[in-house]
Protein backbone atom coordinates (compact mmCIF):
# COMPACT_ATOMS: atom_id res chain seq x y z
CA UNK A 1 0.00 0.00 0.00
CA UNK A 2 1.39 3.36 -0.94
CA UNK A 3 1.18 6.22 1.50
CA UNK A 4 -0.90 9.20 0.55
CA UNK A 5 2.15 11.44 0.73
CA UNK A 6 5.32 9.76 -0.46
CA UNK A 7 8.66 10.20 1.31
CA UNK A 8 10.75 13.06 -0.03
CA UNK A 9 13.52 10.75 -1.28
CA UNK A 10 11.23 8.65 -3.45
CA UNK A 11 9.34 11.43 -5.19
CA UNK A 12 9.58 11.15 -8.98
CA UNK A 13 7.57 14.20 -9.97
CA UNK A 14 6.75 17.02 -7.60
CA UNK A 15 4.22 19.56 -8.77
CA UNK A 16 4.37 22.59 -6.56
CA UNK A 17 1.61 25.21 -6.69
CA UNK A 18 1.47 25.10 -10.46
CA UNK A 19 -0.85 27.48 -12.27
CA UNK A 20 -1.28 27.59 -16.04
CA UNK A 21 -2.98 30.44 -17.83
CA UNK A 22 -3.70 30.83 -21.53
CA UNK A 23 -4.19 34.57 -21.83
CA UNK A 24 -6.89 35.30 -19.29
CA UNK A 25 -8.17 31.71 -19.17
CA UNK A 26 -6.89 29.68 -16.23
CA UNK A 27 -6.45 26.05 -17.28
CA UNK A 28 -4.80 24.88 -14.04
CA UNK A 29 -5.14 26.48 -10.61
CA UNK A 30 -2.61 26.02 -7.78
CA UNK A 31 -2.06 22.36 -8.50
CA UNK A 32 0.12 20.61 -5.95
CA UNK A 33 0.83 16.90 -5.94
CA UNK A 34 3.73 14.51 -5.50
CA UNK A 35 4.08 11.36 -7.56
CA UNK A 36 6.17 8.57 -6.06
CA UNK A 37 8.83 6.63 -7.93
CA UNK A 38 7.50 3.32 -9.37
CA UNK A 39 3.97 4.50 -8.93
CA UNK A 40 1.06 4.01 -11.32
CA UNK A 41 -0.46 7.45 -10.93
CA UNK A 42 -3.65 8.52 -12.68
CA UNK A 43 -4.97 11.97 -13.50
CA UNK A 44 -8.73 11.60 -13.73
CA UNK A 45 -11.27 14.22 -14.65
CA UNK A 46 -13.88 15.27 -17.20
CA UNK A 47 -12.98 16.68 -20.60
CA UNK A 48 -11.33 20.08 -20.46
CA UNK A 49 -10.27 19.90 -16.80
CA UNK A 50 -6.58 20.37 -17.65
CA UNK A 51 -5.16 16.83 -17.65
CA UNK A 52 -3.36 17.14 -20.99
CA UNK A 53 -2.12 20.59 -20.02
CA UNK A 54 -0.47 19.21 -16.87
CA UNK A 55 1.07 16.32 -18.81
CA UNK A 56 2.43 18.66 -21.47
CA UNK A 57 4.02 20.82 -18.80
CA UNK A 58 5.78 17.77 -17.33
CA UNK A 59 6.95 16.76 -20.82
CA UNK A 60 8.12 20.31 -21.52
CA UNK A 61 5.76 21.32 -24.33
CA UNK A 62 4.04 24.02 -22.30
CA UNK A 63 5.49 26.71 -20.05
CA UNK A 64 4.51 26.87 -16.41
CA UNK A 65 2.84 30.21 -15.63
CA UNK A 66 3.39 30.01 -11.86
CA UNK A 67 4.90 27.43 -9.54
CA UNK A 68 7.54 24.77 -10.15
CA UNK A 69 7.79 21.21 -11.34
CA UNK A 70 10.58 19.03 -9.91
CA UNK A 71 11.81 15.80 -11.46
CA UNK A 72 13.65 13.68 -8.89
CA UNK A 73 14.39 16.80 -6.90
CA UNK A 74 15.59 18.94 -9.82
CA UNK A 75 13.70 21.96 -11.10
CA UNK A 76 13.04 21.38 -14.82
CA UNK A 77 11.63 24.72 -15.90
CA UNK A 78 14.57 25.46 -18.19
CA UNK A 79 15.05 21.96 -19.59
CA UNK A 80 13.74 21.56 -23.16
CA UNK A 81 11.62 18.45 -23.86
CA UNK A 82 14.56 16.56 -25.40
CA UNK A 83 16.60 16.92 -22.22
CA UNK A 84 13.96 15.54 -19.86
CA UNK A 85 14.15 11.84 -18.91
CA UNK A 86 10.44 11.60 -19.64
CA UNK A 87 8.68 9.96 -22.58
CA UNK A 88 5.13 10.32 -23.77
CA UNK A 89 2.57 8.01 -25.31
CA UNK A 90 0.52 10.52 -27.29
CA UNK A 91 -3.24 10.35 -27.48
CA UNK A 92 -3.16 9.79 -31.25
CA UNK A 93 0.11 7.80 -30.93
CA UNK A 94 2.01 10.11 -33.37
CA UNK A 95 3.96 7.19 -34.84
CA UNK A 96 6.30 8.41 -37.58
CA UNK A 97 4.44 7.33 -40.74
CA UNK A 98 7.52 7.17 -42.96
CA UNK A 99 9.44 4.80 -40.69
CA UNK A 100 9.05 1.09 -40.06
CA UNK A 101 7.87 -0.14 -36.67
CA UNK A 102 11.46 -1.03 -35.70
CA UNK A 103 12.79 2.38 -36.76
CA UNK A 104 10.06 4.06 -34.75
CA UNK A 105 10.97 2.12 -31.61
CA UNK A 106 14.72 2.60 -32.15
CA UNK A 107 14.38 6.36 -32.75
CA UNK A 108 14.76 7.50 -29.15
CA UNK A 109 17.90 5.45 -28.53
CA UNK A 110 19.49 6.64 -31.76
CA UNK A 111 18.83 10.23 -30.78
CA UNK A 112 20.49 9.50 -27.45
CA UNK A 113 23.60 8.61 -29.44
CA UNK A 114 23.51 4.81 -29.16
CA UNK A 115 24.83 2.83 -32.09
CA UNK A 116 22.36 1.77 -34.73
CA UNK A 117 22.97 -1.89 -33.90
CA UNK A 118 22.34 -1.40 -30.20
CA UNK A 119 19.22 0.67 -30.83
CA UNK A 120 17.80 -1.98 -33.14
CA UNK A 121 18.56 -4.83 -30.76
CA UNK A 122 16.80 -2.99 -27.98
CA UNK A 123 13.89 -2.14 -30.30
CA UNK A 124 13.59 -5.85 -31.03
CA UNK A 125 13.40 -6.61 -27.32
CA UNK A 126 10.76 -3.95 -26.78
CA UNK A 127 8.67 -5.31 -29.65
CA UNK A 128 8.91 -8.74 -28.09
CA UNK A 129 7.72 -7.30 -24.80
CA UNK A 130 4.60 -5.90 -26.47
CA UNK A 131 4.24 -9.02 -28.63
CA UNK A 132 4.66 -7.32 -31.98
CA UNK A 133 7.89 -8.94 -33.22
CA UNK A 134 6.24 -10.26 -36.37
CA UNK A 135 5.27 -6.73 -37.45
CA UNK A 136 8.74 -5.21 -37.05
CA UNK A 137 9.12 -4.30 -40.72
CA UNK A 138 5.67 -2.91 -41.33
CA UNK A 139 4.77 0.73 -41.59
CA UNK A 140 2.49 2.08 -38.82
CA UNK A 141 -0.39 2.51 -41.27
CA UNK A 142 -0.38 -1.24 -41.86
CA UNK A 143 -1.25 -1.95 -38.22
CA UNK A 144 -4.55 -2.02 -36.36
CA UNK A 145 -5.33 0.62 -33.74
CA UNK A 146 -4.43 -1.68 -30.87
CA UNK A 147 -1.14 -2.66 -32.50
CA UNK A 148 -0.27 0.97 -33.14
CA UNK A 149 -0.99 1.69 -29.51
CA UNK A 150 1.49 -0.97 -28.44
CA UNK A 151 4.13 0.35 -30.85
CA UNK A 152 3.71 3.78 -29.28
CA UNK A 153 4.17 2.17 -25.89
CA UNK A 154 7.29 0.28 -27.00
CA UNK A 155 8.71 3.43 -28.57
CA UNK A 156 8.22 5.43 -25.39
CA UNK A 157 9.63 2.67 -23.16
CA UNK A 158 12.68 1.83 -25.27
CA UNK A 159 14.92 4.69 -24.00
CA UNK A 160 14.07 3.59 -20.43
CA UNK A 161 12.65 6.90 -19.25
CA UNK A 162 12.32 7.54 -15.55
CA UNK A 163 8.75 8.67 -16.03
CA UNK A 164 6.27 7.62 -18.70
CA UNK A 165 3.39 9.93 -19.55
CA UNK A 166 0.32 8.36 -21.12
CA UNK A 167 -2.40 10.64 -22.49
CA UNK A 168 -5.64 8.66 -22.77
CA UNK A 169 -3.80 5.88 -24.63
CA UNK A 170 -6.75 3.50 -24.58
CA UNK A 171 -9.52 5.86 -25.63
CA UNK A 172 -9.36 4.92 -29.33
CA UNK A 173 -9.71 1.18 -28.69
CA UNK A 174 -12.86 -0.90 -28.50
CA UNK A 175 -14.12 -2.06 -25.12
CA UNK A 176 -12.69 -5.61 -25.15
CA UNK A 177 -9.24 -4.49 -26.24
CA UNK A 178 -9.34 -1.62 -23.78
CA UNK A 179 -9.98 -3.98 -20.90
CA UNK A 180 -7.22 -6.34 -22.01
CA UNK A 181 -4.78 -3.44 -22.38
CA UNK A 182 -5.50 -2.28 -18.82
CA UNK A 183 -3.94 -5.45 -17.46
CA UNK A 184 -1.08 -5.33 -19.97
CA UNK A 185 -0.25 -1.76 -19.03
CA UNK A 186 -0.45 -2.50 -15.35
CA UNK A 187 1.84 -5.53 -15.58
CA UNK A 188 4.22 -3.64 -17.88
CA UNK A 189 4.49 -0.95 -15.25
CA UNK A 190 5.27 -3.53 -12.56
CA UNK A 191 7.87 -5.30 -14.73
CA UNK A 192 9.71 -2.16 -15.77
CA UNK A 193 9.42 -0.29 -12.48
CA UNK A 194 8.95 2.95 -14.42
CA UNK A 195 6.72 5.64 -12.94
CA UNK A 196 3.57 5.89 -15.03
CA UNK A 197 1.47 9.04 -15.13
CA UNK A 198 -1.71 8.01 -16.83
CA UNK A 199 -4.42 10.38 -18.02
CA UNK A 200 -8.00 9.28 -18.46
CA UNK A 201 -11.55 10.51 -18.15
CA UNK A 202 -12.79 6.95 -17.60
CA UNK A 203 -13.26 6.36 -13.89
CA UNK A 204 -13.42 2.58 -14.25
CA UNK A 205 -10.04 2.60 -16.01
CA UNK A 206 -8.62 4.74 -13.23
CA UNK A 207 -10.01 2.55 -10.45
CA UNK A 208 -8.74 -0.73 -11.91
CA UNK A 209 -5.19 0.35 -12.79
CA UNK A 210 -3.95 3.00 -10.42
CA UNK A 211 -1.97 2.99 -7.22
CA UNK A 212 -3.21 6.51 -6.62
CA UNK A 213 -5.63 8.78 -8.41
CA UNK A 214 -5.79 12.55 -8.60
CA UNK A 215 -9.34 13.63 -9.38
CA UNK A 216 -9.44 16.97 -11.18
CA UNK A 217 -12.18 19.34 -12.21
CA UNK A 218 -11.99 22.80 -13.80
CA UNK A 219 -8.23 22.94 -13.39
CA UNK A 220 -8.32 22.20 -9.68
CA UNK A 221 -7.36 19.14 -7.71
CA UNK A 222 -10.47 17.69 -6.05
CA UNK A 223 -9.06 14.69 -4.27
CA UNK A 224 -5.88 12.64 -4.17
CA UNK A 225 -5.70 9.13 -2.84
CA UNK A 226 -5.77 5.40 -3.42
CA UNK A 227 -8.57 4.11 -5.63
CA UNK A 228 -10.39 2.54 -2.71
CA UNK A 229 -10.23 5.66 -0.55
CA UNK A 230 -11.52 7.85 -3.31
CA UNK A 231 -14.39 5.51 -4.01
CA UNK A 232 -15.37 4.93 -0.40
CA UNK A 233 -14.51 8.30 1.11
CA UNK A 234 -15.08 11.00 -1.50
CA UNK A 235 -14.20 14.45 -0.17
CA UNK A 236 -16.89 16.37 -1.99
CA UNK A 237 -19.97 16.15 -4.15
CA UNK A 238 -18.02 16.31 -7.40
CA UNK A 239 -15.84 13.32 -6.53
CA UNK A 240 -18.77 11.28 -5.19
CA UNK A 241 -20.68 11.90 -8.42
CA UNK A 242 -17.77 11.42 -10.82
CA UNK A 243 -16.43 8.18 -9.33
CA UNK A 244 -18.93 5.36 -9.53
CA UNK A 245 -22.63 5.78 -9.01
CA UNK A 246 -24.15 7.23 -5.90
CA UNK A 247 -27.37 8.42 -4.34
CA UNK A 248 -26.88 12.08 -3.55
CA UNK A 249 -29.52 13.14 -1.04
CA UNK A 250 -30.20 16.76 0.01
CA UNK A 251 -30.52 16.84 3.77
CA UNK A 252 -30.56 19.25 6.72
CA UNK A 253 -28.44 18.56 9.80
CA UNK A 254 -30.76 18.25 12.82
CA UNK A 255 -28.24 17.80 15.59
CA UNK A 256 -24.74 16.53 16.22
CA UNK A 257 -23.92 14.37 19.21
CA UNK A 258 -20.78 12.39 19.96
CA UNK A 259 -19.31 12.75 16.49
CA UNK A 260 -22.52 11.55 14.82
CA UNK A 261 -24.78 13.82 12.82
CA UNK A 262 -28.48 13.20 12.50
CA UNK A 263 -29.85 14.45 9.20
CA UNK A 264 -33.38 15.21 8.10
CA UNK A 265 -34.25 13.79 4.68
CA UNK A 266 -37.79 15.15 4.50
CA UNK A 267 -40.75 12.93 5.20
CA UNK A 268 -40.15 11.55 8.66
CA UNK A 269 -36.81 10.09 7.83
CA UNK A 270 -33.70 10.74 9.82
CA UNK A 271 -30.37 9.32 8.75
CA UNK A 272 -27.28 9.27 10.92
CA UNK A 273 -23.72 9.46 9.74
CA UNK A 274 -20.25 10.54 10.88
CA UNK A 275 -20.08 14.28 11.44
CA UNK A 276 -17.41 16.30 9.61
CA UNK A 277 -15.59 19.49 10.56
CA UNK A 278 -17.30 22.76 9.80
CA UNK A 279 -20.83 21.39 9.71
CA UNK A 280 -23.19 22.31 12.52
CA UNK A 281 -26.89 21.87 13.22
CA UNK A 282 -29.15 23.52 10.65
CA UNK A 283 -26.65 23.23 7.78
CA UNK A 284 -27.90 22.22 4.31
CA UNK A 285 -25.65 19.35 3.21
CA UNK A 286 -25.65 16.21 1.09
CA UNK A 287 -25.50 12.56 1.91
CA UNK A 288 -23.82 10.19 -0.49
CA UNK A 289 -24.90 6.56 -0.32
CA UNK A 290 -23.51 4.00 -2.77
CA UNK A 291 -26.36 1.90 -4.23
CA UNK A 292 -24.55 -1.38 -3.51
CA UNK A 293 -24.49 -0.60 0.21
CA UNK A 294 -28.28 -0.54 0.36
CA UNK A 295 -30.51 -3.60 0.43
CA UNK A 296 -34.22 -4.26 0.24
CA UNK A 297 -36.43 -6.24 2.58
CA UNK A 298 -40.08 -6.82 3.35
CA UNK A 299 -39.79 -5.78 6.97
CA UNK A 300 -37.54 -3.13 8.47
CA UNK A 301 -34.16 -4.44 9.64
CA UNK A 302 -32.40 -1.18 10.58
CA UNK A 303 -33.15 1.88 12.64
CA UNK A 304 -33.51 4.34 9.75
CA UNK A 305 -36.74 2.79 8.60
CA UNK A 306 -36.81 4.03 4.98
CA UNK A 307 -39.98 2.84 3.27
CA UNK A 308 -41.21 3.16 -0.26
CA UNK A 309 -42.49 1.53 -3.42
CA UNK A 310 -40.48 -0.05 -6.23
CA UNK A 311 -40.67 2.10 -9.35
CA UNK A 312 -38.57 0.03 -11.72
CA UNK A 313 -35.95 -2.69 -12.06
CA UNK A 314 -33.04 -2.26 -14.43
CA UNK A 315 -30.96 -5.26 -15.39
CA UNK A 316 -27.28 -4.38 -15.87
CA UNK A 317 -25.49 -7.68 -16.25
CA UNK A 318 -23.94 -8.55 -12.92
CA UNK A 319 -26.40 -6.44 -10.95
CA UNK A 320 -29.99 -5.38 -10.80
CA UNK A 321 -30.75 -1.75 -10.04
CA UNK A 322 -34.00 -1.10 -8.30
CA UNK A 323 -35.38 2.43 -8.21
CA UNK A 324 -37.44 2.99 -5.09
CA UNK A 325 -39.63 6.04 -4.51
CA UNK A 326 -39.51 6.69 -0.76
CA UNK A 327 -42.84 7.55 0.85
CA UNK A 328 -42.89 11.36 1.17
CA UNK A 329 -39.27 11.43 0.08
CA UNK A 330 -36.87 11.34 -2.88
CA UNK A 331 -36.08 8.42 -5.16
CA UNK A 332 -33.23 6.16 -4.21
CA UNK A 333 -31.33 3.56 -6.22
CA UNK A 334 -30.53 0.16 -4.73
CA UNK A 335 -28.14 -2.24 -6.38
CA UNK A 336 -28.46 -5.98 -5.79
CA UNK A 337 -25.81 -8.33 -7.05
CA UNK A 338 -27.18 -11.06 -9.28
CA UNK A 339 -25.40 -13.70 -7.24
CA UNK A 340 -27.38 -12.65 -4.16
CA UNK A 341 -30.66 -13.12 -5.89
CA UNK A 342 -31.21 -16.60 -4.61
CA UNK A 343 -31.13 -15.37 -1.04
CA UNK A 344 -32.90 -12.05 -1.43
CA UNK A 345 -36.29 -11.63 -3.00
CA UNK A 346 -36.77 -9.60 -6.18
CA UNK A 347 -39.34 -6.91 -5.67
CA UNK A 348 -41.56 -6.14 -8.63
CA UNK A 349 -42.61 -2.60 -9.56
CA UNK A 350 -45.41 -1.48 -7.22
CA UNK A 351 -44.28 -3.62 -4.29
CA UNK A 352 -43.88 -1.91 -0.92
CA UNK A 353 -40.33 -2.31 0.40
CA UNK A 354 -38.04 -1.27 3.19
CA UNK A 355 -34.66 0.18 2.20
CA UNK A 356 -31.89 -0.73 4.62
CA UNK A 357 -28.42 0.70 4.88
CA UNK A 358 -25.14 -0.93 5.87
CA UNK A 359 -23.47 0.72 8.85
CA UNK A 360 -21.29 3.63 7.73
CA UNK A 361 -22.75 3.68 4.22
CA UNK A 362 -23.96 7.28 4.39
CA UNK A 363 -21.28 9.96 3.97
CA UNK A 364 -21.86 13.59 4.70
CA UNK A 365 -20.64 15.98 1.99
CA UNK A 366 -20.63 19.73 1.57
CA UNK A 367 -20.65 21.45 -1.83
Amino acid sequence: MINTTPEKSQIAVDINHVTKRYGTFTALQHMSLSIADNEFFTLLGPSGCGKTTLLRMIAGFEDVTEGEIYLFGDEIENLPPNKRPVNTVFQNYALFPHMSVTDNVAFGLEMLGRSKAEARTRAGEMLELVQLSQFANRKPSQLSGGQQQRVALARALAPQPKVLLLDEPLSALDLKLRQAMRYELKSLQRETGITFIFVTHDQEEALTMSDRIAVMSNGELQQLGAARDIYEAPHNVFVANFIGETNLLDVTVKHITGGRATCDLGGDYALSCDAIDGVSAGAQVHLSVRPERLYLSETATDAEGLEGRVRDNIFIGTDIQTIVALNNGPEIIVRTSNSDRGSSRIFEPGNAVHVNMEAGAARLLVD
Partner: protein
Amino acid sequence: MTKRTHDIRRYPGFLPMTILCLTLLYAPLIVVTIYSFNSSNSITNWEGLSLRWYVDVFTGPEAEKFKRAAWNSFTIALIAATTATTIATLAATGMIRAGQFKLRTLSFGLISLPLMVPEIVTAVATLIFFNSIGFVRGYTTILLAHIAFCIPFAYMPISARMQGVEDTYEQAALDLYASKRQAFTKILLPLMMPGIISGFLLAFIISLDDFIITNFVKGAGVETLPTAIFGAVKQGIKPNIMAISTMLLAVSIIMVTISYFISKSDNKT
Protein backbone atom coordinates in the same frame (compact mmCIF):
# COMPACT_ATOMS: atom_id res chain seq x y z
CA MET B 1 -29.99 1.51 -59.10
CA THR B 2 -30.55 5.14 -58.17
CA LYS B 3 -26.94 5.90 -58.99
CA ARG B 4 -27.62 5.33 -62.67
CA THR B 5 -30.27 8.05 -62.91
CA HIS B 6 -27.77 10.67 -61.77
CA ASP B 7 -25.05 9.42 -64.06
CA ILE B 8 -23.60 12.48 -65.74
CA ARG B 9 -22.98 10.45 -68.88
CA ARG B 10 -26.72 10.36 -69.49
CA TYR B 11 -27.15 14.13 -69.59
CA PRO B 12 -28.15 15.38 -73.06
CA GLY B 13 -25.25 16.78 -75.03
CA PHE B 14 -22.64 15.21 -72.77
CA LEU B 15 -20.85 13.33 -75.54
CA PRO B 16 -20.63 16.15 -78.13
CA MET B 17 -19.49 18.58 -75.41
CA THR B 18 -16.77 16.20 -74.28
CA ILE B 19 -15.54 15.69 -77.80
CA LEU B 20 -15.54 19.44 -78.46
CA CYS B 21 -13.50 20.20 -75.33
CA LEU B 22 -11.00 17.43 -75.91
CA THR B 23 -10.59 18.52 -79.53
CA LEU B 24 -9.96 22.14 -78.61
CA LEU B 25 -7.48 21.12 -75.95
CA TYR B 26 -5.53 18.46 -77.76
CA ALA B 27 -5.97 18.79 -81.51
CA PRO B 28 -3.31 21.50 -81.89
CA LEU B 29 -0.85 19.50 -79.80
CA ILE B 30 -1.53 16.35 -81.76
CA VAL B 31 -1.16 18.12 -85.09
CA VAL B 32 2.16 19.65 -84.05
CA THR B 33 3.43 16.32 -82.78
CA ILE B 34 2.46 14.47 -85.96
CA TYR B 35 3.81 17.10 -88.32
CA SER B 36 7.11 17.20 -86.47
CA PHE B 37 7.72 13.78 -88.04
CA ASN B 38 6.93 15.05 -91.55
CA SER B 39 9.65 14.75 -94.14
CA SER B 40 8.38 17.76 -96.12
CA ASN B 41 9.70 21.31 -96.01
CA SER B 42 6.15 22.53 -95.72
CA ILE B 43 4.39 22.66 -92.39
CA THR B 44 1.02 21.64 -93.82
CA ASN B 45 1.64 19.04 -96.53
CA TRP B 46 2.29 15.52 -95.31
CA GLU B 47 4.88 13.75 -97.40
CA GLY B 48 6.04 10.89 -95.24
CA LEU B 49 7.44 9.81 -91.93
CA SER B 50 10.93 10.99 -91.08
CA LEU B 51 13.13 12.20 -88.23
CA ARG B 52 14.60 14.81 -90.53
CA TRP B 53 13.57 17.82 -88.45
CA TYR B 54 14.83 16.30 -85.25
CA VAL B 55 18.19 15.80 -86.90
CA ASP B 56 17.94 19.36 -88.17
CA VAL B 57 17.39 20.68 -84.62
CA PHE B 58 20.65 19.11 -83.51
CA THR B 59 22.80 19.50 -86.59
CA GLY B 60 21.13 22.06 -88.86
CA PRO B 61 22.17 25.68 -89.38
CA GLU B 62 20.26 26.82 -86.29
CA ALA B 63 21.51 23.97 -84.09
CA GLU B 64 24.09 26.05 -82.22
CA LYS B 65 21.53 28.70 -81.35
CA PHE B 66 18.97 26.18 -80.10
CA LYS B 67 21.52 24.18 -78.13
CA ARG B 68 22.73 27.29 -76.33
CA ALA B 69 19.14 28.36 -75.66
CA ALA B 70 18.23 24.89 -74.37
CA TRP B 71 21.30 24.83 -72.13
CA ASN B 72 20.35 28.26 -70.73
CA SER B 73 16.74 27.19 -70.21
CA PHE B 74 17.63 23.98 -68.39
CA THR B 75 20.32 25.43 -66.16
CA ILE B 76 18.15 28.43 -65.28
CA ALA B 77 15.16 26.19 -64.57
CA LEU B 78 17.27 23.85 -62.44
CA ILE B 79 18.95 26.57 -60.37
CA ALA B 80 15.82 28.72 -60.09
CA ALA B 81 13.61 25.78 -59.08
CA THR B 82 16.14 24.51 -56.53
CA THR B 83 16.64 27.92 -54.96
CA ALA B 84 12.94 28.79 -54.98
CA THR B 85 12.03 25.40 -53.46
CA THR B 86 14.56 25.84 -50.67
CA ILE B 87 13.30 29.32 -49.87
CA ALA B 88 9.67 28.18 -50.08
CA THR B 89 10.35 25.21 -47.75
CA LEU B 90 11.93 27.46 -45.14
CA ALA B 91 9.16 30.03 -45.55
CA ALA B 92 6.47 27.38 -45.10
CA THR B 93 8.23 25.98 -42.02
CA GLY B 94 8.42 29.43 -40.50
CA MET B 95 4.89 30.45 -41.39
CA ILE B 96 3.14 27.28 -40.28
CA ARG B 97 5.28 26.23 -37.33
CA ALA B 98 5.97 29.59 -35.70
CA GLY B 99 2.51 29.63 -34.15
CA GLN B 100 0.20 32.61 -34.32
CA PHE B 101 2.26 35.68 -35.04
CA LYS B 102 0.82 39.08 -35.77
CA LEU B 103 1.57 39.49 -39.45
CA ARG B 104 0.91 35.90 -40.43
CA THR B 105 -2.10 36.51 -42.67
CA LEU B 106 -0.33 39.44 -44.27
CA SER B 107 2.81 37.37 -44.88
CA PHE B 108 0.77 34.62 -46.47
CA GLY B 109 -0.93 37.16 -48.71
CA LEU B 110 2.38 38.68 -49.71
CA ILE B 111 3.83 35.31 -50.68
CA SER B 112 0.87 34.24 -52.79
CA LEU B 113 -0.05 37.60 -54.32
CA PRO B 114 2.45 37.35 -57.24
CA LEU B 115 0.34 34.44 -58.56
CA MET B 116 -2.46 36.91 -59.21
CA VAL B 117 -0.45 39.84 -60.55
CA PRO B 118 -0.58 39.99 -64.37
CA GLU B 119 2.72 38.64 -65.63
CA ILE B 120 3.32 41.62 -67.88
CA VAL B 121 3.21 43.90 -64.82
CA THR B 122 5.79 41.76 -63.04
CA ALA B 123 7.90 41.77 -66.19
CA VAL B 124 7.88 45.55 -66.53
CA ALA B 125 8.50 46.03 -62.82
CA THR B 126 11.41 43.59 -62.81
CA LEU B 127 12.94 45.30 -65.83
CA ILE B 128 12.64 48.75 -64.23
CA PHE B 129 14.10 47.36 -61.01
CA PHE B 130 17.16 45.90 -62.76
CA ASN B 131 17.67 49.09 -64.74
CA SER B 132 17.42 51.33 -61.71
CA ILE B 133 20.01 49.36 -59.73
CA GLY B 134 22.23 49.29 -62.79
CA PHE B 135 22.30 45.56 -63.45
CA VAL B 136 23.58 44.59 -66.87
CA ARG B 137 20.94 42.41 -68.47
CA GLY B 138 21.97 38.86 -69.26
CA TYR B 139 21.95 35.33 -67.85
CA THR B 140 22.07 36.52 -64.22
CA THR B 141 19.11 38.84 -64.53
CA ILE B 142 17.01 36.06 -66.07
CA LEU B 143 18.04 33.70 -63.28
CA LEU B 144 17.24 36.17 -60.49
CA ALA B 145 13.86 37.01 -62.02
CA HIS B 146 13.04 33.30 -62.37
CA ILE B 147 13.98 32.56 -58.75
CA ALA B 148 11.71 35.38 -57.62
CA PHE B 149 8.61 34.43 -59.58
CA CYS B 150 9.06 30.68 -58.93
CA ILE B 151 8.86 31.06 -55.13
CA PRO B 152 5.05 31.36 -54.87
CA PHE B 153 4.59 28.42 -57.23
CA ALA B 154 6.89 26.26 -55.12
CA TYR B 155 5.33 27.56 -51.91
CA MET B 156 1.74 26.47 -52.68
CA PRO B 157 2.16 22.66 -52.75
CA ILE B 158 4.73 22.74 -49.93
CA SER B 159 2.56 24.70 -47.53
CA ALA B 160 -0.49 22.64 -48.45
CA ARG B 161 1.44 19.51 -47.57
CA MET B 162 2.82 20.97 -44.38
CA GLN B 163 -0.59 21.98 -43.11
CA GLY B 164 -1.51 18.31 -43.32
CA VAL B 165 1.46 17.24 -41.17
CA GLU B 166 0.41 17.50 -37.53
CA ASP B 167 2.96 19.02 -35.21
CA THR B 168 2.63 16.09 -32.81
CA TYR B 169 5.17 14.22 -34.96
CA GLU B 170 7.81 16.82 -34.22
CA GLN B 171 6.77 16.88 -30.57
CA ALA B 172 7.13 13.11 -30.44
CA ALA B 173 10.62 13.47 -31.93
CA LEU B 174 11.58 16.11 -29.37
CA ASP B 175 10.13 13.92 -26.65
CA LEU B 176 12.39 11.11 -27.90
CA TYR B 177 15.51 13.25 -27.40
CA ALA B 178 15.87 14.62 -30.94
CA SER B 179 17.26 18.14 -31.22
CA LYS B 180 15.18 20.73 -33.08
CA ARG B 181 17.40 20.27 -36.11
CA GLN B 182 17.03 16.48 -36.01
CA ALA B 183 13.27 16.79 -35.63
CA PHE B 184 13.30 18.92 -38.79
CA THR B 185 15.62 16.78 -40.91
CA LYS B 186 14.49 13.33 -39.74
CA ILE B 187 10.77 13.88 -39.32
CA LEU B 188 9.36 17.05 -40.84
CA LEU B 189 11.41 17.08 -44.04
CA PRO B 190 10.67 13.46 -45.05
CA LEU B 191 6.99 13.98 -44.30
CA MET B 192 6.97 17.11 -46.45
CA MET B 193 8.98 15.56 -49.28
CA PRO B 194 6.03 14.88 -51.63
CA GLY B 195 5.05 18.55 -51.34
CA ILE B 196 8.64 19.67 -51.87
CA ILE B 197 9.02 17.53 -54.99
CA SER B 198 5.72 18.79 -56.41
CA GLY B 199 6.82 22.34 -55.65
CA PHE B 200 10.15 21.78 -57.35
CA LEU B 201 8.62 20.24 -60.48
CA LEU B 202 6.04 23.00 -60.73
CA ALA B 203 8.71 25.69 -60.36
CA PHE B 204 10.91 23.91 -62.91
CA ILE B 205 8.17 23.74 -65.53
CA ILE B 206 7.08 27.34 -64.90
CA SER B 207 10.66 28.55 -65.33
CA LEU B 208 11.31 26.41 -68.39
CA ASP B 209 8.15 27.69 -69.99
CA ASP B 210 8.38 31.38 -69.12
CA PHE B 211 8.41 33.81 -72.01
CA ILE B 212 7.11 37.23 -71.00
CA ILE B 213 9.37 38.04 -68.04
CA THR B 214 12.39 36.39 -69.69
CA ASN B 215 11.87 38.41 -72.84
CA PHE B 216 11.91 41.63 -70.82
CA VAL B 217 14.91 40.98 -68.61
CA LYS B 218 17.17 39.04 -71.00
CA GLY B 219 20.05 40.89 -72.54
CA ALA B 220 20.91 40.93 -76.20
CA GLY B 221 22.35 37.63 -77.32
CA VAL B 222 21.17 35.58 -74.33
CA GLU B 223 18.23 33.39 -75.26
CA THR B 224 16.17 30.73 -73.55
CA LEU B 225 14.21 28.15 -75.54
CA PRO B 226 10.93 30.08 -75.51
CA THR B 227 12.57 33.34 -76.64
CA ALA B 228 14.68 31.49 -79.23
CA ILE B 229 11.58 29.76 -80.60
CA PHE B 230 9.73 33.05 -80.70
CA GLY B 231 12.64 34.63 -82.53
CA ALA B 232 12.74 31.82 -85.07
CA VAL B 233 8.98 31.89 -85.62
CA LYS B 234 9.16 35.58 -86.47
CA GLN B 235 11.17 34.63 -89.53
CA GLY B 236 8.49 32.11 -90.57
CA ILE B 237 7.47 28.77 -89.12
CA LYS B 238 9.74 25.92 -90.09
CA PRO B 239 9.06 22.27 -89.20
CA ASN B 240 12.08 22.22 -86.88
CA ILE B 241 10.08 24.44 -84.48
CA MET B 242 7.52 21.67 -84.28
CA ALA B 243 10.24 19.18 -83.42
CA ILE B 244 11.49 21.39 -80.59
CA SER B 245 7.95 21.93 -79.32
CA THR B 246 7.32 18.21 -79.34
CA MET B 247 10.47 17.59 -77.31
CA LEU B 248 9.45 20.25 -74.78
CA LEU B 249 6.05 18.63 -74.58
CA ALA B 250 7.70 15.29 -73.86
CA VAL B 251 9.76 16.82 -71.04
CA SER B 252 6.60 18.27 -69.46
CA ILE B 253 4.74 14.99 -69.74
CA ILE B 254 7.63 13.13 -68.11
CA MET B 255 7.75 15.57 -65.21
CA VAL B 256 4.00 15.48 -64.63
CA THR B 257 4.16 11.69 -64.68
CA ILE B 258 6.95 11.64 -62.11
CA SER B 259 4.99 14.04 -59.92
CA TYR B 260 1.90 11.82 -60.23
CA PHE B 261 3.73 8.66 -59.23
CA ILE B 262 5.39 10.36 -56.27
CA SER B 263 2.07 11.52 -54.90
CA LYS B 264 0.65 8.05 -55.48
CA SER B 265 3.47 6.21 -53.73
CA ASP B 266 3.05 8.63 -50.84
CA ASN B 267 -0.58 7.61 -50.39
CA LYS B 268 0.51 4.03 -49.91
CA THR B 269 2.80 4.65 -46.96
